[in-house]
């Protein structure tokens, strides 16, 4: 973690956030499997605090490792607000369709293969981002509302939302690698929260800790 993060979160606060993320994502994984029959493994999440000015480079380097990607972007609002990004390799679109398809997908004039693939990508993005944000919010005793997810093209990612962040601010980036069980398929889940959330988050972290003391 870089040095500029020190004045925003103390080491203790970072530890609590890490702990909450572990619990939240663990419980998201369990519920996804149990309730919705989607089997994913989420890696231990990493927390980065990044000045918004450096966000484009961070995203470029992070997403670049996943060449040929499709990205689902979904905004969330509430005490904890920001954007969720699901980064998947392009070849995953077909796999997503097979994962979600009720039966052999029916292609027609109005529903082309491309539409069906888009549909399943948006659905999986909505569910995974919502699961992680939802569980995190639940632990911090709040809840989020969401905008419709949209697919953005990899090269467009910077324009698409760096603009929604104030360049003088710091963003909290929560990064997880997820893997679909029994499939050779993994992707990246990023939650970006803006600085306005930081004050609230610090308060929520302390309240969370107090409830255990």
């Amino acid at each position: 973690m870089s040095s500029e993060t020190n004045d925003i979160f103390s080491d203790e606060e970072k530890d609590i956030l890490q702990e909450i993320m572990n619990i939240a994502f663990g419980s998201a994984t369990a519920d996804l499997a149990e309730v919705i029959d989607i089997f994913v493994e989420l890696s231990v999440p990493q927390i980065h605090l990044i000045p918004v000015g450096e966000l484009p480079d961070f995203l470029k380097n992070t997403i670049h490792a996943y060449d040929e990607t499709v990205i689902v972007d979904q905004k969330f609002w509430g005490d904890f607000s920001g954007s969720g990004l699901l980064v998947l390799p392009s070849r995953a679109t077909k796999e997503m369709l097979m994962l979600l398809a009720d039966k052999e997908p029916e292609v027609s004039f109005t529903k082309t293969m491309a539409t069906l693939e888009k549909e399943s990508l948006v659905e999986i993005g909505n569910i995974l981002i919502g699961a992680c944000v939802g569980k995190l919010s639940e632990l911090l005793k709040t809840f989020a509302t969401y905008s419709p997810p949209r697919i953005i093209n990899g090269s467009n990612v910077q324009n698409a939302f760096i603009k929604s962040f104030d360049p003088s601010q710091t963003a909290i980036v929560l990064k997880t690698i997820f893997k679909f069980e029994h499939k050779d398929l993994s992707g990246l889940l990023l939650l970006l929260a803006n600085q306005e959330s930081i004050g609230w988050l610090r308060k929520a972290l302390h309240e969370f800790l107090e409830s255990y003391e």
Partner: protein
Amino acid sequence: MIFSQIFEMVNVGIVILDKEFKVYKWNRWMETYGKIPAEKIVGASLFTFFPDLNTPSFRRNFKAVTTFGNFAFFSQNLHGHLFPFKATNTLGTDIKYMQQNCTMGPIRDENNIINYVYIMVHDVTEIAVYEQKLLEMNIKDPMTGVYNRRYLESCLEREFEIHKRYKKPLSLIMLDIDFFKRVNDTCGHQCGDSILIECASFIDSNIRTVDILARYGGEEFCCLLPETRIESALSTAERIRKKIEDHTFHVNKTKIKITVSQGVAVLSPEITSPETLLKIADSALYKAKEDGRNRTVTIS
């Protein structure tokens, strides 16, 4: 009190379900467009009235709402509609059902516990209809109703790429009405127009649905025949030519006989661009005119 009145008044369908898919609330909008009164559906499972909604995808989204507090979005673009309500005002398009943008989300109690799920239904049929109309206008010739030249050229380009990869035969017919100027001059342009319209539907009814018929110029039509060898393209062209020759057009009680000349071409390895194929068909058409009209010619 105020909110319950608004709940009934808004121009949005609102359904509230409990966690077992049972209908808890059904607003007046849903009664009006769904033609199901609230007292009939409240307390019953949503799937009793809408069995088509009982899909793994719908249940998955519903559970994501109850478990994680997710929202789920069913956009018109991707889904068309969630509730099969009859569409009104479709301006002659083939849209059967009301086009809807739907959102599903959680309703929490004071302790943040999710006990209910709402579905909101927005009628976006009008937008969908305009979109379809615009798309149609973009690819069709307004007078004859067959495709326009631009659309044909984009199809030709696509078929050309498919041919390069899969080597399936591709043929093209260029058709021109003989002495059409004479028809216009003697019977007037309106008469000419109705002959063009009738001619277009004549050709259209003699080709397969996969073939692309376009008005290429004034009285010139072009027909793209995917997966068709030259022999069948020639026999299709001849069938069209004979039918038009045998047909008597009736316009304002005037009987008019017309004939057509046609050039037919097929893709071969020497043809390296879609434009060349068009040019070859055009030269064949020119030769048909030279040779005395009312005939089908191919240049091999």
